[in-house]
């Protein structure tokens, strides 16, 4: 038996994680993190989603008869996640706030707090698996490896890539060995009110999914040109932060051909668009990678470059502190600021990864660029 702090979001996954830990005989305490304030456009008279979630989390804890606390991390969430999210868009990159949140607030930082508070481990409802000598991890301890979830559709190992070995040693991911339908089934049998609660797909502080609308409230209009790959001006934009590499919709151009955002350059305030071929990318660079395991200096790995997408075969080489990733087949639509996460050849074990800080743009500008 270990003393385990479980992060209860108020969703079905973390509720079942808590239930599984209790069933395994651990001494479990639940904590709900208050992260973002009520969205200002929430309809009046309807409690905000945050409050409903806190209530659901509290109910789960009560049904499991475990202590429950709510910690106010709004300041940390704002300064470590929301503000950098906006700032990153202003520099023409496409951040993944869930990765940042796991590192700075929800996982790594919370684990530090859990350890300080005397817990042996932090558990979350993330879909990813931990193994020790090939076996599923049910108690904290060293020599743990991070793997994709049994339910590949729900796998979240991507957003946990930053976990360090000593952090994995104090982490439990109870639902990673189950499929989503299994998890809902367990929740229903336990009588949890959240058993059929819809999954959240969007960024939690932008519940309507309108990222541009959110950014509009935080970033100024900054008009600049939209050009094609030859530099011909096709139109204008109101801010580079409205665009993401690979984006096709909302370009506001009358074009017969299918056009995509091929590059976003904040320094020249220019958005470059082109045909799909212009999105072709042969290599990326990760300036500050983090690993939970030693990766061979030159190796053939699988690299996942966005949260929802498959991993691509690549040769990964060290370049000082940085990593150079060369894809065996070109990939399309690589946005700077997203995380690139490294998996083994079987696309199962997660080694680590980092933010994409540079990418091949030869298809946009020709081989001389960069």
């Amino acid at each position, binding site marked *: 038996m270990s003393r385990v702090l479980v992060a209860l979001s108020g969703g079905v996954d973390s509720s079942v994680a808590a239930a599984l830990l209790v069933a395994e005989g651990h001494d479990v*305490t639940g904590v*709900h993190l*208050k992260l973002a304030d009520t969205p200002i456009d929430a309809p009046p008279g309807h*409690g905000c989603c*945050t*409050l409903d979630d*806190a209530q659901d989390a*509290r109910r789960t804890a009560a049904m499991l008869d475990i*202590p*429950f*606390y*709510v*910690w*106010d991390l*709004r300041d*940390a969430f704002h300064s470590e996640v929301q503000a950098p999210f906006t700032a990153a868009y202003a520099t023409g990159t496409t951040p993944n706030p869930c990765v940042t949140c796991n590192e700075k607030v929800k996982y790594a930082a919370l684990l*530090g*707090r859990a*350890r*300080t*508070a005397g817990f042996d481990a932090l558990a979350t409802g993330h879909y990813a698996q931990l193994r020790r000598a090939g076996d599923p991890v049910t108690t904290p301890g060293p020599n743990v490896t991070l793997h994709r979830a049994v339910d590949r559709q729900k796998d979240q190992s991507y957003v946990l890539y930053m976990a360090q070995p000593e952090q994995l040693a104090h982490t439990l991911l109870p639902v990673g060995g189950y499929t989503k339908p299994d998890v809902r089934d367990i929740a229903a049998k336990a009588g949890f009110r959240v058993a059929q609660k819809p999954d959240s797909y969007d960024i939690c502080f932008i519940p309507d999914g309108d990222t541009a609308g959110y950014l509009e409230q935080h970033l100024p209009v900054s008009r600049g040109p939209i050009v094609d790959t030859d530099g011909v001006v096709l139109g204008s934009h109101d801010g580079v932060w409205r665009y993401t590499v690979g984006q096709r919709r909302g370009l506001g151009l009358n074009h017969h051909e299918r056009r995509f955002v091929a590059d976003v350059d904040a320094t020249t305030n220019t958005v470059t668009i082109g045909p799909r071929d212009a999105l072709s990318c042969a290599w990326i660079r990760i300036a500050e990678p983090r690993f939970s395991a030693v990766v061979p200096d030159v190796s053939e790995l699988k690299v996942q470059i966005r949260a929802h997408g498959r991993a691509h075969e690549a040769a990964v080489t060290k370049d000082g502190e940085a990593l150079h990733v060369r894809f065996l087949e070109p990939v399309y639509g690589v946005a700077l600021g997203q995380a690139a996460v490294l998996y083994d050849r079987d696309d199962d074990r997660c080694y680590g990864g980092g933010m994409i800080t540079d990418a091949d743009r030869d298809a946009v500008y020709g081989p001389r660029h960069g």
Partner: protein
Amino acid sequence: MNVYLDHAASSTPRPQARAVLLTHLDAANGSAAHQRGQNTRAVIEEARERVAAAIGATPHEVVFTSGGTEADNLALKGIIWAARDARRTTPHLIISATEHAAVKDAAVWLAERGDATLDLVGCGPDGCIDVDQVLGLLRAETALVSVMTANNELGSINPIAELAAALAPKGVPLHTDAVQAIATLDVNVTRDQISALAASGHKFGAPQGVGFAVLRRNLPVVPLHHGGGQDRGVRSGTFATALIASVAAALDATVAERQQLVIRLNRLSDKLAANLTTLEGVRRNGPVDPTRRLASHVHLSIDDVAGELLGLRLDALGIATSGGAACSSGATTASHVLVAAGITGTPLRLSLGWDTTDNDIDTAITGLSELIPALQAHPGVWA
């Protein structure tokens, strides 16, 4: 350990309140014409008389509510809307910066809607308002001043009688949120010239879910709940007979025992504070003058300890306390009261009630005297 020092959040129901609650559970509708209805109504009106006598009001100035929040909302919105309806100008409202959310959020809501213009008056480092500062904000259109009798976090007692006396000649009504005060403070709306007051039963030994507003005669108030008009036409809804009888019984017991209780709680809270402030990095907040703070409250600032960690450990020890006012999600958030008073450090409120014992205080002193230095010595990773 099982020590309950969160009476400011909810106190223990008094035996007298428990007894009448059960007696009147099977009451008929107090507005019904038949004999059983009349019997119920007699219970309600007797309760009203007892509450009125205890608070220095006349019976028809007492309106039973679901609690303090409803009473505060009724006073603020009801009085401001009545003033708006009677005048051509937008009413002006003054509240203190340390008001409970039931007043503060209602006032801000009124101002955001354009139903009132709002001024907030700050407080001193002891959490008390200054009467002259309030008077300095008065305007011809000032329709209401709302200042709490005593602050729920710090226990600071405001100079309500002095303020009301200064406002009375100007014809400006004073509403006071007395929710936190009534358990240990003699509040009398006639003596203190208070125009409106809010009280909550569960802070002084009644069950949760009942309170009352005092709305003095000649003070126009627009009702918030429309319906049967049961309570003076100001508050509709079937009388909660058992709860109403219970709040009157609790208030009676409170008034009867208050002098003795205050002497005892002052001794206990001072003992608690004196022992804990010998610890490194622990300070007592609120007024230094014991006549200006509630006997029930000890508010501390603790350096170099994370509030969440302190709360977790205290709860594990079985010592129930508060890090601040609990918000809707259950998180303890940075308090506007402490910000207004310029108070830093991790806050810890220990609040005593009518059934707090010497043993409770000794146990809390022992537990906290071990816990606080231990947490300070091993701050760990928290930021």
